[in-house]
């Protein structure tokens, strides 16, 4: 089986990975790097649980091949905050009680993070639209919306 050496930046650290041609970024993160905050669910671009930032843009890591990423920069949920120092957005999710089972939350946070980096004060319709690729099976959408609004309102403080 032919393998490819890929050098890329993950959460600001350089990494070299040996991957096969069809291995996804998601599987490389979870199985090779032990970055299990990025969740695997549908593995076909429907649910957003696997959302990461690729060169600053939100993408489904289940639809990106690791081989495509030579020289790229990837940010996962582990690069956004740590348990002892959560990001403002993660704090807002907790403050609004937006986390139920939690499975969709890393993807939600990554999608919301990309949105707020792009537009610090989005309206509700924009937030809904930009999170429409992220499914929450606990259906906590209203609280997730409020969490993003809360983080957005704190953005200038």
């Amino acid at each position, binding site marked *: 089986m032919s393998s490819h050496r890929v050098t890329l930046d993950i959460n600001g650290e350089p990494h070299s990975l040996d991957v096969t041609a069809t291995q996804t970024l998601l599987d490389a993160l979870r199985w090779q790097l032990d970055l299990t905050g990025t969740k695997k669910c549908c593995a076909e671009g429907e649910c957003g649980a696997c959302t990461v930032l690729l060169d600053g843009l939100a993408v489904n890591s289940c639809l*990106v*091949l690791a081989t*495509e990423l030579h020289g790229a920069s990837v940010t996962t949920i582990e690069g956004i905050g740590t348990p002892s120092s959560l990001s403002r957005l993660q704090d807002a999710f907790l403050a609004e009680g937006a986390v139920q089972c939690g499975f969709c939350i890393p993807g939600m946070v990554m*999608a919301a993070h990309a949105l707020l980096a792009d537009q610090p004060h989005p309206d509700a319709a924009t937030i809904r639209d930009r999170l429409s*690729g992220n499914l929450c099976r606990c259906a906590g959408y209203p609280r997730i919306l409020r969490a993003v609004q809360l983080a957005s309102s704190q953005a200038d403080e």
Partner: protein
Amino acid sequence: MAMLAEPRYHSPEVLDEVFTDLEHFGPSGLPFAGGTDVVVGLRKGKLAPRVMVDLKRVADLAQGIEVNDTWLRIGALTTLSRLVAHPDVRSHFPALVEAANTVGSIQIRNRATLAGNICNASPAADTAPALLAYHARIALVSRHGIRQMPVADFVLGPRRTALRAGEVVNGIDLPLDGGVAGSSFTRLTRRRGVDLATVSVCAVVDRRGTHIAYGAVAPRPFVLTDNAGVLADPHADPAARKALLTGFAAHASPISDLRGSREYRQAMVITCSERALQTAITRRHRP
């Protein structure tokens, strides 16, 4: 269970290497750009190439969006996110923006390309009706040079295009000579948010006529034109307009699937075309 052989991955830097790969591997060479459909196809075993040819680093493939007096050219590697953010695309081709914005989610649009959406040739591809109604042309490049054809002739049927062996898409051109136009894209889905279209329609009213293009209701998207001015006339007899649109809808041959029955789709083709046309006319006459 036999393991499928892992393909090789190539990331050529010039077109010449792409052509060499495609010549060497023939139909088992798979060129791709955003990969959002390809990765799913690989995973489900629907695609089993021997080599995957990543086009994203090919320096001599048109990368961005170029505008001159008569054309707007969308390079083969342009993602849907970049397409919908481009000011000239937004002002001249709003229905393409509306259509592209319905493809998947933002996560998908950040990767997927317009050219890839067309090459994938899904009967439900949302961008296809918009490209057809705007009379877009696709440029294909091979070792023998570039040839062009209307996007309407390029998509032949489900998963089938006019792409020849050894050829890749260079770009998609949209004409800027239609005069003041009004256009609109309408689609029907089972739910709001991310879903494939049950019916999609794009209407464009320009000085050449009124062009109505249909997606998801036939093996391939198609476009029909009214040159008599009936559809473009905001004061036309509604019965005459409806008769024309009903005649257009007779070209549809929808199937029944989990998104809707044949009969439902057939009825909704007319409704969607009325809505798209009305919005296009309103936009055209907006001061």
